[in-house]
């Protein structure tokens, strides 16, 4: 049996695909162009810009900073987000509804505004060290992802399972770790990946919080682009995509990506 597909649907799907993949192809193309400026389609073929990316120490340094922030910020955010999501799912009836929306605020507020207010309060207000304010800033912008994604998996969790554990002699705090967490693991990992990528790519909050000597990779890329319009940034972008793909691949290998759709 042949399924009938409308030609307009095929065209629409092709267009969608093109818009999603097109920019990636352009960046990959530009990164191997043998010219001293960004161009597409590439002229010539060289890996010089990749070599250049590794030779600029600022990129390496800020990449490490970005990784630390993504891991640390997400971990910090999970420490707040998981208990919050748990409380909202467990006491859905008792707690007021607006609580859930408060945790989405960092997404609703324009990031520029969030970054500026964090700078005013954390960096210049109470003079926190740059790294610490960056960490707090990143934890804040990824918090909505942690709360929402973990919350979604907690909403389908039957809390009588937790009560069953308690009735069998397991204290509540222990039941949280031995029964609840293993059953919402999928949501936690999905939330972690989303938050990690959001943090790694963040510009608008980081730009207000970075300072002398401490910067993140996206900010460094921006600064580099203002001075040199060469294909190095394209090659760094491709490498960043590689890191993201690698993270997904490792997760796929160890846990299976199907949990993302569960």
């Amino acid at each position, binding site marked *: 049996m042949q399924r009938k597909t409308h030609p307009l649907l095929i065209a629409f799907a092709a267009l969608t695909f093109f818009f999603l993949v097109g920019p990636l192809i352009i960046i990959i193309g530009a990164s191997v162009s043998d010219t001293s400026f960004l161009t597409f389609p590439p002229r010539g073929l060289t890996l010089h810009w990749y070599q250049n990316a590794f030779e600029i120490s600022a990129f390496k340094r800020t990449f490490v900073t970005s990784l630390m922030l993504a891991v640390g910020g997400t971990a910090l955010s999970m420490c707040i987000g998981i208990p919050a999501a748990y409380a909202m799912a467990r006491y859905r009836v008792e707690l007021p509804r607006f609580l859930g929306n408060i945790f989405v605020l960092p997404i609703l507020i324009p990031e520029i505004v969030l970054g500026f207010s964090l700078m005013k309060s954390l960096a210049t207000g109470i003079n926190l060290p740059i790294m610490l304010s960056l960490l707090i800033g990143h934890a804040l912008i990824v918090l909505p992802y942690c709360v929402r994604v973990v919350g979604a998996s907690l909403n389908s969790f*039957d809390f*009588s*399972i937790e*009560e*069953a*554990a*308690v*009735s*069998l*002699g*397991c*204290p*509540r705090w222990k039941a949280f770790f031995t*029964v609840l967490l*293993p*059953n919402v693991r999928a949501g936690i990992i999905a939330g972690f990946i989303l938050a990690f990528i959001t943090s790694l790519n963040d510009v608008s909050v980081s730009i207000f919080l970075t300072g002398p000597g401490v910067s993140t990779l996206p900010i460094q890329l921006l600064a580099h682009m203002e001075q040199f319009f060469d294909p190095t940034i394209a090659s760094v972008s491709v490498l960043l995509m590689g890191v993201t793909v690698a993270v997904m691949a490792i997760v796929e290998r160890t846990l299976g990506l199907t949990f993302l759709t569960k």
Partner: protein
Amino acid sequence: MTVSLSIENVTAHYGTTKVLEDLSLHIAEGELVSLLGSSGCGKTTTLRLVAGFLEPTAGKIRLGERDLTRLPAHNRDIGLVFQTYALFPHLTVRDNVAFGLKQRGVSAGERKRRADDMIDRVGLNALADRYPANLSGGQRQRVALARALVIEPPLLMFDEPLSNLDAKLRVDMRVEIRRLQQANGTTALYVTHDQEEAFSISDRVAIMNAGRIMQLDAPEVLYSRPANAFVADFVGFENMIPMKAIAESGDAVRAEMPGGATLNLPKDTFTVPSQNFILATRPEGLLVAPSGDGIPTSLGLRTYLGRAYQYQCDTAAGELKANGPLAHPYESGSNAVLIPQPEQCCLLPAEAA
């Protein structure tokens, strides 16, 4: 080890709403008592209080010599079976059953031996390595039962354990529950909204309404001798007929029915509560006859029940339901009398109406 459960003058609130009012209930050693009632009657609240998931605002709960009232839930040593089974999805059948033993620090080998033994007793030994997701509803409930029994709790509690199963399986499972409970001699509290289920497996049943126990008795007593209008209506005494005692002879009381005819109530079966009282019957307790000493009626809609026809009857006492024999169907609209069959009636105080 069998002990008794005592719930003494317990009151409970949800926020400011009172859900249990001065409730007392004693379950003897090895006895199975059901709490029966519609949703919101307080039966699940009672179970959750005993389990330790809720705290009473007043009163005491004792299990044998132990005072449970303020004891944390995980120290209560009660086997619980949930409506949703509540199995641990990330553990195999064996690990589910062994969970309670692990919490008690039983060694791994002993754990496996006792879990396998219990899995065997509920007939699931071929499935010990499966995960709950790969079991049918009935198998899941057996695992839940095994998991609750393996810790050898002095008290077993069931929270609507069969309502997610289909009809035939429900009957099989309740027999199984009763068999295991009696074999172990475990004291048990069973919560359900299903009258047949409660009556079939319980030593005694407490019919609850609005946070109170309306009557606590053996199923046979509840079924034939309800103590008040609520219980009478609950167990199917659908007709409430106002009566008036008019004369008393040696061995019977003569009472007047709506419409003026009289009925003899033998004193050895009935105690007339007051001059005005209520005669409660099921539809099969009212005989439909062409004439005689009964309540005059105009027969309304006729429905076929299989074992009898049922008529909606318009009478001076309001609409009554009566069953007529299959052999003589009456036409709708014909006049007849409804004759109460004393052996299928019970008497209630008048204010109950």
